[in-house]
């Protein structure tokens, strides 16, 4: 029993440097901003859909019906504006929670028109976690204000209270929560597969093949460009699909168990990213947050990497 307790204690309450959470804030917040800006036309376009398609999800369920498109535009650009301060870590005590709530609302609203895109979920959950923890203690406007301004300066009122300057358990549990949420999201996807109508038969790869085919077929019938070019590969090499299905189930169903050891967790990240690359090649479907690794930054000591890159860069440009 004490082993489990020690393990749990070590997992949730080790001392992590504030820089790790700060890098996660910059990477996750930065990616969220990129995601919103890159899709800004689609976000705002969907908000102008006919009201007959309105099927609210998430925070949008609190509304009585669709809001005016102009109001949505204002909220969208407000989110972008607040996001700049989120990434820069300015007045985080207010900006963190505000950005998290705005992101969840703006994204919920975009998904409230008859189609829920699952690739938005994990990013939203990570932003939600980061918005309510002291993620701006390092590499931020707040840390600069704390160093350079006197204690009674009004500009310091937005600094997150009570967060220590050195490594602490306060910077550990949010990072570990991000890892747990990531693995649970995949675990739920795995459970949905085996508890769904396909059952354990999903592991034969036949259902996966037909999913790939269905997507390609629909794209062929509803887009001018047609489906993914690699779909034939799924039919020529059924053993590849069988292997992919088995690996998918293992990686998804047992995802939280990979958190038992740091290295196992990192192996899981490699496997999951492999699955996403497989989906990208076969279905022309890119889960950018996952494919580019941003979703899994919490599994690594990114502040160590960042400092190594920083030192190398300094050497290259000749700064001592």
């Amino acid at each position, binding site marked *: 029993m004490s082993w489990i307790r020690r393990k749990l204690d070590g997992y949730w309450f080790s001392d992590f440097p504030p820089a790790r959470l700060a890098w996660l804030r910059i990477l996750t917040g930065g990616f969220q901003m990129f995601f919103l800006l890159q899709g800004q036309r*689609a976000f705002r*376009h*969907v908000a*102008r*859909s006919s009201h007959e*398609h309105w099927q609210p999800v998430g925070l949008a369920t609190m509304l009585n019906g669709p809001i005016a498109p102009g109001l949505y535009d204002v909220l969208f650009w407000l989110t972008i504006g607040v996001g700049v301060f989120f990434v820069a870590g300015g007045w985080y005590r207010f900006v963190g929670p505000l950005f998290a709530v705005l992101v969840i609302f703006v994204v919920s609203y975009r998904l409230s*028109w*008859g*189609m829920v*895109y*699952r690739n938005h979920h994990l990013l939203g959950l990570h932003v939600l976690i980061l918005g309510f923890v002291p993620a701006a203690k390092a590499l931020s406007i707040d840390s600069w204000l704390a160093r350079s301004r006197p204690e009674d300066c009004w500009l310091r009122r937005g600094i997150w209270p009570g967060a220590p300057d050195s490594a602490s358990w306060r910077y550990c549990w949010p990072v570990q929560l991000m890892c747990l949420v990531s693995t649970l999201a995949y675990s739920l*996807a795995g459970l*949905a*597969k085996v508890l*769904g*109508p*396909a059952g354990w038969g*999903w592991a034969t790869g036949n*259902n*996966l*093949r*037909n*999913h790939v*085919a*269905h997507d*390609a*077929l*629909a*794209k*062929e*019938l*509803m*887009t*001018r460009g047609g489906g993914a070019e690699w*779909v*034939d590969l*799924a*039919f020529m090499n059924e053993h590849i699909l069988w292997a992919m299905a088995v690996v998918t189930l293992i990686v998804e169903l047992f995802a939280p168990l990979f958190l038992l050891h740091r290295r196992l967790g990192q192996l899981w990240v490699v496997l999951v990213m492999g699955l996403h690359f497989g989906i990208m090649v076969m279905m022309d479907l890119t889960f950018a947050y996952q494919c580019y690794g941003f979703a899994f930054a919490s599994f690594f000591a990114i502040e160590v990497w960042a400092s190594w890159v920083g030192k190398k860069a300094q050497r290259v440009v000749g700064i001592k």
Partner: protein
Amino acid sequence: MFSGKRDDTLKVTYMYALDAKGKRYTIPYNYWARGGFNQGRSQLRKAVRQGKKATIKKCEFVAERLAKKKSGWRSRVEKVRVAKGRFDVEQFFVEGNREPLRELIKAECPVVRDTSEKEGAK
């Protein structure tokens, strides 16, 4: 993701247009839906599920949009159809037979162009 059961025969709801000679043209999803591909797919499926009235409304909406086009295949088409096709995946991808096993026409509507502009030009 990918948790639903998919059989070897797949049903897809889609739209296409026909010209005077009966040549078929794919109508992309962005003609009837705002947002992404899956959004378009889901909205069309939902319209067909809702019944004839909703399906015809979608069909007419697309026909009206096509009627405004002045160049390319879009200016030549005369009819729009909403269809639900059943396809065999093996036949479609391995044998290359792109024809549906069965196709049900859920709605059909004409592309009515404003001819007064052409006559005015004459």
